[in-house]
């Protein structure tokens, strides 16, 4: 209680203030109706530009394939953020763990990349659930406030970053996989492996998206996210659904980690190095719903590559994007809503 102001404790026990959707954390939209039209238009523009100009072809192809894991990671993070309202910094270590598990299975048992992919993702999902049950659920039961929750996730992230070095070793690790073939797309050579990463990411986001849209569990997830109190009064058991969502988010993060790791190498700061970009994509893309996260994630990947190609330094690209995102967040992002309470 100590960190909770009397006003927020008021709100947390008062169903009338908990229930209205406008007051919930996360975004208001989950649907995608206007999104489809925009996506189609964007897709056409991309194909035309890529066919006509070499620079754009390289930008789109490299941007999309190299940064595919960003989309997947942001998608998983967004799911969790949408349902629980928790900005979980330690999600970064779910990503790292996915990469570590995969590289460990690959290095120790000589299993191929595609063999270790799924088990590594599942393990990351399980560990994500463990962090929920052991840390976040427990903390929530002790009525830890929202700000403290974020700080806890920050502490957990730091802890895992370093503790993992004792488990997996200090040095960087790399996958032991045969060199990939190069395939030409729009005249740009891409490794078959990166292309497969893009395909897997596309397939996974689609599957998870469909799971949420079409299945009964998915409906429960959306009901809980839409109106928590009403979902409970309708018989939705929040614990099961919450565990499921932590698992799915962890799975996405873990798989993203495997792809990240395969693109470069694996070390304990792999996740945290990508986190800021993921956070920005989720917070800004989330303004336009879950599909917005995917689209903004893709656009971010392409922009990163484009600016890097143009100015020859990937740090400039990151700088431009961080500043741009913070600007969007300032003017379009969610505001404090408690002004209306007085």
């Amino acid at each position, binding site marked *: 209680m100590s960190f909770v102001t009397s006003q927020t404790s008021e709100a947390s026990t008062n169903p009338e203030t908990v229930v209205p959707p406008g007051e919930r954390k996360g975004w208001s939209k989950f649907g995608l109706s206007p999104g489809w039209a925009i996506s189609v238009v964007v897709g056409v523009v991309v194909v035309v530009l890529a066919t006509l100009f070499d620079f754009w072809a390289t930008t789109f192809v490299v941007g999309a394939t190299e940064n595919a894991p960003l989309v997947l990671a942001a998608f998983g993070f967004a799911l969790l953020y949408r349902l629980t309202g928790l900005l979980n910094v330690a999600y970064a270590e779910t990503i790292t763990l996915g990469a570590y598990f995969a590289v460990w299975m690959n290095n120790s048992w000589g299993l191929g990349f595609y063999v270790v992919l799924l088990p590594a993702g599942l393990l990351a999902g399980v560990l994500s659930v463990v962090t929920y049950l052991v840390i976040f659920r427990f903390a929530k039961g002790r009525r830890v406030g929202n700000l403290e929750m974020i*700080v806890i996730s920050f502490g957990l992230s730091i802890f895992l970053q370093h503790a993992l070095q004792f488990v997996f070793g200090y040095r960087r690790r790399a996958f032991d996989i045969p060199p990939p073939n190069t395939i030409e797309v729009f005249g740009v050579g891409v490794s078959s492996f990166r292309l497969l990463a893009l395909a897997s990411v596309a397939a996974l986001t689609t599957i998870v998206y469909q799971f949420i849209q079409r299945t009964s569990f998915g409906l429960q997830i959306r009901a809980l996210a839409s109106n928590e109190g009403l979902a409970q009064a309708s018989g939705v058991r929040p614990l099961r659904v919450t565990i499921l969502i932590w698992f799915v988010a962890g799975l996405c993060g873990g798989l993203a980690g495997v792809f990240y790791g395969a693109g470069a190498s694996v070390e304990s700061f792999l996740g945290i190095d990508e986190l800021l970009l993921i956070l920005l994509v989720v917070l800004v893309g989330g303004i336009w719903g879950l599909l917005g996260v995917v689209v903004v994630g893709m656009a971010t990947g392409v922009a990163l590559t484009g600016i890097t190609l143009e100015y020859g330094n990937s740090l400039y690209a990151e700088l431009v994007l961080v500043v741009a995102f913070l600007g969007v967040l300032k003017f379009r992002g969610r*505001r404090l809503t408690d002004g209306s309470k007085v």
Partner: protein
Amino acid sequence: MNLDWLDAFLIFGAFKVVEIMGLGLLVHLQLGLTRVANFGVVGFWGVGLYAFGVAHLKIDWPFGDPYQFLVCAAIATIVAAAAGLVVGWLISDLDDDGTLVGTLGFATIVVILATTQQGLTGGALGLGGLGFPYDFSRVKTHEFTWLLITAAVVALIFAYAWRVHRTPHGRLLIAVGANEALARSLGKSATAARLRMMMVTSGAMGLLGAMHGVMVRSLEINSLDVSVTLAALAALILGGTARVFGAVVGVLLTVALFDIVIQFYLPIPDGWNTQALPVAREAVFGAAIVLMLIFRPQGLLGQMRRPALMRRLHGDW
């Protein structure tokens, strides 16, 4: 001054303790009173460090030390305060999530700029040539003196934080942190209060960065590491975010324990110092944050003792 009894590493350890204590006290004003969670402490500190270094090395000052130091340190403070103002404005009407992203984003921007602006900062290679603003002929004496001066600055920061608890400014910060909407309805501009606080605390963080630059005598990109933020945050949370002494106690139990007691007085195997110990240190700090916030969120020293303080101040009411 005969300082043979003093190990040079010990001076550096003590400097770190003092420095993090200063940062912890400033985070106390931000997080403990105003409830602004700054995850980019290293950004403000780093802006001070680099502004100082660049001003010192790249500008041809017509005067020498100590004036050159004073002017450059003032520049560092002003630049960091301006950064505090900008970030404060950026996060002024965002929620805790926005604050996290805003401060983290700012720290990242600082690191990127320090890396890319090679002409000014030396980039990834770093830049040497900073020095102490006095000349006593022996390095150890220099460092020891600098430790004392930094300790004096941190003592001033402590005195300021202590004073803030006893002024209407502090009351306003607590009010804004606890219930912004209610403070607004009483005619208080929460944004202005927060911006002023961010400006003052960030400026002081920048000054500490400048003092760090003098001590290490170079700009190194690796020093802009999240571990600065972590140490300040972990120490404060361990000691107690809402108490002035929280950062002091917390730093003694964290940074002093690891960087002085364990490193110098425990018989640890060779080689641990370079790898296992620093890694374990960060892991322990992270775990400390998690465990404290779950089991004793008010820290070792406990809650703000406002009624007791008011009794001391207004006992004759």
